[in-house]
């Protein structure tokens, strides 16, 4: 059984290493936080639930509109990005980045993090 603290460490490393990333959160598909490193002004419970609702809807849209398996949900705002990706069967990852972030680098870094987390979860 993987410790939440190990996952949190992984998120912390990711935030430290990736430019312009401000937070990351691992959530169950039904909206409960597993490990979280998010700005203190955000409510963890609420952010988790929103992430699950959003990814679930995106998933449904991709399916109903024949867009295949969903890769990510990107919410691009004036002040930055919220990016949601699936991270194994029951877990999703939310990444928060500021507006200076480069999408390509961000996507790549997220992909790597997902692989790392998945291999952590396998052990």
């Amino acid at each position, binding site marked *: 059984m993987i410790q939440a603290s190990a996952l949190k460490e992984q998120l912390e490393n990711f935030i430290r290493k990736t430019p312009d990333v401000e937070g990351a959160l691992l959530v169950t598909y*039904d909206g409960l936080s597993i490990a979280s490193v998010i700005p203190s002004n955000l409510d963890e419970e*609420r952010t988790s*639930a929103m992430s699950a*609702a959003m990814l*679930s809807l995106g998933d*449904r849209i991709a399916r109903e509109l024949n867009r295949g398996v969903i890769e990510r949900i990107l919410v691009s705002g004036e002040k930055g990005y919220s990016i949601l990706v699936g991270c194994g069967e029951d877990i999703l990852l939310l990444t928060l980045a500021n507006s200076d972030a480069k999408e390509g680098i961000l996507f790549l870094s997220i992909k790597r993090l997902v692989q790392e987390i998945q291999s952590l979860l396998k052990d």
Partner: protein
Amino acid sequence: MDKLKIVIAGPVGAGKTSFINAISEVEVVDTDRRATDETALRKQRTTVAFDYGKLTVSSGQILYLYGAPGQFRFDFMWDILIKGVAGYVLLVDANRPQDFYKARQILNFIKERINTPMILGLTHMDCEGAWEAEEMALALGLIDKEARPPIVTVNALEAKSVARCLIALLEHLIEKTVLNKG
């Protein structure tokens, strides 16, 4: 009044997803996910965004049915779903008094935001130990008999029963509209 948005709200496991599934004429858009919280003790899957279904009634009205998630962590969805709603059904499992306070909180949440006609739908009334409608109304804080919304018994798995509930809501809507105009 030909297209109406209706929300089905209520605590976890009251039967909201079943309700919409029982009556929708289109394939229901659901956002069910495997439950990992205390919900998992009672059912495997739970709604995380909303359920969507549609029903055309004989008078040519189209009802767009939106089922809300039951857990409070999804209250932002309630906020989104109740925008522009014509009326809503508060579904409560009459056999789970431990949920009545939650139902009351959901009702208060919605009432604080919109003043829209609603009815109370009681599910699991056939279970042994189910509360009586009168007791339920009191438990939910609906004390004033005159101002009380209609209360109906619903079997959320049965299309006929769900239809009766929606008709009761429509009648209530009409009644309220007439009263407001008069």
